[in-house]
């Protein structure tokens, strides 16, 4: 009796184990199929999202006959750099490059130095008016910039900064960019500074360093990655900016690259598409490189701590 039940129960367990294994295999197979299906969807999304960028580069490298054909070719059979040569030989291209470099360079150096000082104050000291300062910084980031075009133009015109003189015109753009980039830089650098343990700084001071010594030897190297990331973001934003540059730089020889690019076609129907795409590629390349360098660090600045909070 007992043996019989044991055998049946043993058989039942074996069957059950087999069944479970089969179920596992089935589930595993189903999971693999669904993973493959999701991968396909992922690749499709990738193709759609990246296509415009690919199309820009691809067009820039095509000869005109392929560009103007009614049946487009995906990859050029005879790629050429002619359009790039045309683009850089266009009037004012090198002026635009120079202007963009000057504006971006001065803006980034001044903004980072000033923002760093303010960030230290926010991260290391408690003082009256601190909250108000923070609110003002974040509030400025939210202002609709196009709404400030008119008063800025009027005020800068009052101080003769909207003239054709390159020094004055570029100065106007630089101080305008600084105003909108400083709040961002202060906020981001403050975040990086808060990440540095206070003990490190205190330990250095106990060891006999002055506050300044502790600052230079301990704080500065630790916050260097943050400084780099913030600078890169400032560089990208200043490089890409269009509204204020378009309003404040009235003379063609003062245009930045983005403004130069926006005037590339005018409104004519016979657009030089190859040249336009080559010029677009040239404008985008520095930004793409910079962006790939710091993307990870910057991505979460604007929403930092949202989940924790």
């Amino acid at each position, binding site marked *: 009796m007992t043996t019989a039940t044991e055998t049946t129960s043993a058989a039942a367990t074996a069957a059950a184990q087999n069944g479970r294994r089969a179920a596992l295999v089935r589930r595993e197979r189903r999971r693999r199929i669904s993973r493959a299906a999701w991968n396909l969807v992922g690749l499709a999304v990738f193709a759609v999202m990246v296509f415009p960028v690919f199309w820009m580069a691809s067009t820039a490298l095509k000869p005109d006959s392929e560009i103007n054909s009614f049946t487009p070719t995906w990859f050029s059979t005879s790629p050429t750099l002619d359009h790039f040569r045309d683009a850089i030989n266009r009037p004012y291209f090198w002026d635009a490059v120079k202007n963009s470099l000057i504006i971006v360079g001065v803006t980034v150096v001044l903004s980072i130095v000033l923002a760093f000082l303010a960030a230290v104050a926010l991260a290391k000291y408690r003082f009256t008016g601190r909250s108000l300062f923070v609110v003002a910084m974040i509030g400025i980031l939210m202002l609709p910039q196009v709404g400030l075009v008119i008063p800025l133009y009027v005020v800068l015109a009052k101080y003769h900064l909207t003239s054709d003189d390159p020094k004055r015109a570029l100065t106007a753009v630089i101080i305008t960019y600084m*105003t909108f980039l400083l709040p961002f830089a202060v906020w981001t650098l403050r975040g990086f500074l808060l990440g540095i343990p206070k003990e490190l700084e205190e330990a250095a001071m106990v060891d006999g360093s002055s506050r300044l010594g502790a600052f230079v030897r301990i704080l500065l190297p630790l916050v260097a990655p943050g400084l780099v990331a913030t600078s890169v973001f400032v560089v990208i934003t200043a490089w890409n900016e269009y509204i204020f540059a378009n309003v404040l730089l009235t003379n063609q020889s003062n245009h930045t690259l983005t403004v130069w690019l926006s005037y590339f076609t005018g409104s004519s129907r016979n657009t030089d598409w190859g040249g336009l795409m080559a010029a677009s590629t040239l404008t985008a390349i520095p930004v793409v490189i910079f962006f790939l360098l710091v993307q990870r660090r910057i991505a979460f600045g604007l929403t930092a701590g949202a989940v924790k909070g």
Partner: protein
Amino acid sequence: MPSSQVPDGTEVVVEVTPSWPRRRSPLTRGRALQGALPYLLILPVLVVIGAVLGYPLYKLVTLSFQRYGLFELIQRQGEWIGLDNFSSVLHDGVFWHTLERTIVFTIVNVGLTMVLGTLIALLLVRVSTWVRVLLTSGLVLVWSMPVVVAVQIWFWMSNFQNGILNHVLTQLHVGDFFQHDWYATTFSKLAMVTLLIVWGAIPFVTITVYAGLAQVPRELVDAAEIDGAGPLRVFRDVTFPILKPIFLILTSLSIIWDFGVFAQPYLLISPSNVDASNYLMGVYVYIEGYAQTNFGRGAAISLLMVVMVAAMSVFYVRRMVRMKDVQ
């Protein structure tokens, strides 16, 4: 008070409980300087922002009460006309139509951005690692495109003669789009602008939401699935509540950005074709105020716009400040 000689230090000194019993010496010069230090540190930023933003903001208010055109710009003296600019703007049908169009445009753009961005983030969780890396790099590439460059690419892709968009849609038998002009109607124009903006805005949303998804405990999702919850239920009852703060911030940021958008509609519709039939708020302010050199009236429109956006930002700013207090 001995420390009153120290410039800028006085107010701080008063605050530091002067009758502290164990203090042996009065405040030294160094201490007062310590108190003033944070103010000295933020001073340069305050000066720049005050001069280049504070003054124009004040000017924005005064200009909106003045007649201020090219003549006044040269004279550097506007004529005070009270509320005339505001009543002119508020009695103008163009203003209300533009506002209505911008609100609808913002809702559509933000909705599409948030939904598509979130879907792609959820997709990122389900794909193999190599697809995830590929897709993320693609998104970063899109994210890094300067707006003006993106506009030119769009311009080329939707060109009516030999744009790739027409070709592909015709090839896919969606319809006959041979030489279809995408910029013929207002709706079509704004639809192209929407495509451009949503395309450019998806990467930020996707990458932020994906980062948030990493913080959703795996056990919670597993438990819900064992209890028989489908993917929709899991998202609604588990993922969404946890990510709610992120969604709120992303949505409010997107609303603020899309409501004030300028470069994309202005350049894609093209400066010679923007007019009252297709204005969005940003373009409207720019054309009616700056381009037509009617600075006074433009300032009135700008001020109304700034106030509207400021009202929308209150939520975001409060949230960010609260987070600062937690840290």
